[in-house]
C-alpha cells in the first residue's frame, strides 16, 4: 500500500501540532510587529519607511522557503508515490504565492521612497517575479486535469523543474549589479545588522513560518476530509 502511507497517523500529528503553530504564529507576529514598528530604531537616511523591511524581508524569505518545501514535497511524492506528500505540496502552493506577492508589493512600496521607483527590472526582482509565475503555473497545472491525482503528479514535476530558480534568486544580488541591496543577514560571516533590528526580523520570520504551518495544516486536513467524503460517496453509490 504505497499510496496512502500513514494518512491517519499524519493527520493525528497535524491536528496535534496545529494549535501550537497557531499560538506561536500569533505571539511572534505580534511581538515582531511591536518590536519592528514601534521599538526598533528608525534609519538615519530612510527614517520611518525602513520599517517596511520587517514585513518585506521575512516575506521574501518565506517565498523561497515555501517553494523549497513545495519542491521537496513534490520530490518525496514522486519518488515514494506518497499521496500525502502531494497533498502537502498542494496546500503549500497558494501560501507561498501569497508570500511572494506580499514581498513584491511591500518591496514596491518600499522602493518608491528609497529608490524613487515602484519597480526596476533588475536580477532580484525579475527572478522573484518568475517565482510568482512558477507558483501560478503550479496551481494552474495542478487544477487543469479531471483526474486530480494526475494533476498533482504533473505539477510535482513542474515544481522540481522550477526549483533552479531559488538559488538564482538568492545569489542574484551577488552575481549581478542590482539596485536591490545585497545580502546582509544570511551571509557566510554572519549577520551584518544590529540586534535591535535583527530581533524583530527573526521574530517576524518565525511568526511567518509558524503561520505557514498553521495554514498548511488547515488545508491538508480539509483535503483529506474531502477525500474521505469522496470515498464514502463512491462506496454509497456502489452499495
Amino acid at each position, binding site marked *: *500500500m504505497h499510496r496512502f502511507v500513514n*494518512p491517519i497517523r499524519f493527520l493525528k500529528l497535524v491536528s496535534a501540532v496545529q494549535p501550537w503553530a497557531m499560538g506561536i504564529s500569533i505571539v511572534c507576529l505580534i511581538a515582531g510587529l511591536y518590536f519592528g514598528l514601534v521599538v526598533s530604531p528608525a534609519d538615519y537616511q530612510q527614517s520611518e519607511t525602513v520599517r517596511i523591511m520587517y514585513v518585506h524581508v521575512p516575506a521574501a524569505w518565506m517565498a523561497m522557503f515555501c517553494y523549497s518545501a513545495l519542491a521537496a514535497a513534490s520530490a518525496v511524492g514522486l519518488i515514494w508515490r506518497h499521496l500525502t506528500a502531494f497533498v502537502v505540496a498542494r496546500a503549500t502552493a497558494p501560501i507561498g504565492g501569497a508570500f511572494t506577492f506580499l514581498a513584491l508589493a511591500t518591496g514596491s512600496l518600499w522602493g518608491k521612497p528609497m529608490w524613487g521607483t515602484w519597480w526596476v527590472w533588475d536580477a532580484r526582482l525579475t527572478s522573484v517575479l518568475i517565482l510568482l509565475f512558477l507558483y501560478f503555473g503550479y496551481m494552474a497545472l495542478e487544477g487543469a486535469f479531471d483526474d486530480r491525482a494526475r494533476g498533482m503528479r504533473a505539477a510535482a514535476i513542474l515544481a522540481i523543474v522550477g526549483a533552479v530558480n531559488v538559488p538564482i534568486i538568492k545569489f542574484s544580488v551577488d552575481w549581478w549589479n542590482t539596485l536591490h541591496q545585497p545580502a546582509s543577514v544570511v551571509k557566510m560571516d554572519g549577520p551584518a545588522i544590529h540586534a535591535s533590528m535583527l530581533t524583530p526580523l527573526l521574530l517576524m520570520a518565525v511568526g511567518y513560518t509558524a503561520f505557514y504551518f498553521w495554514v498548511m495544516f488547515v488545508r491538508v486536513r480539509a483535503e483529506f476530509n474531502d477525500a474521505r467524503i469522496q470515498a*464514502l460517496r463512491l462506496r454509497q453509490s456502489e452499495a
Partner: protein
Amino acid sequence: MAQFTGSGLSSFRGGRMAFRGLDFGVGGGEMLHLVGPNGSGKSTLLRVMAGLLPLAGGQLQWDGTDLAEDRDGHRARLAYVGHADAVKGELSVTENLQFWCAMAAHGSPNGGADEAAGLQRFNLGKLADLPARFLSAGQRRRLNLARLAAIPATLWLLDEPAASLDSASVATLEAEIKRHLEAGGCVVMASHGRDPSDSMVLELSQYAGGGMDFEDAVP
C-alpha cells in the same frame, strides 16, 4: 520455459482500486484469457502487466525476476495492443509499420523485424502504399495487429484485439495467436465473452477492489 507470474496484485485507476489480491501465472505456449464485465479492470491489468501503470501492491515476475528490476528487458520482450490503433493518417500503411519496426530496434539482423511479412499475414499487401487515412476501422486494427506478425516478441498483451474485425480477419488473428503459442510465446488477452476453447481463464470480477476505503489505507 518462460513464466510470467503475478501475486497479490492491486492497482488504482481513476481514484478507485481496480482490483486487489490478484494472482495469475502463464507459461510459454499458454494463453491467459481475461474475462469480466465492463469496468472490471481487464484493461488496467493489461497495462499493469505492460508496465504502463504502476502497481499499488503485489509483485510481477518473469522467470522469477521481479519486473521492477528489469524494466528494459521486459519492454524488449513484449508486444502490446491497446484500444487505439496508433495509426498516422498522413503516412502510408507501409511507412506506419516500418516506423514501429525501426522503433523495436532489435539490433540484430536475424532477430530483426520483417514488415513485409507483417503486412502479408494480415492481408494488407494490396494496401501497402495507401495513405492510412483511407483505411476503414477494421483495416486500421489489422495494421495495428500487423506489428505482432512483424516484430518478434515473447509476450503478447492484447486488449480486445478482435474489436472491429470481420470474421475472416478474426480467423487470421486466431491463426497468428496459435502460431505464436506453438513457437513458445505466451499471450494474455482480454475480451468480453467467455472463450470456450482450452485457454486458461481469469475472471476479474472476483478481484474487484471497489471504492477506495480511506480508513483501511493504514498499513
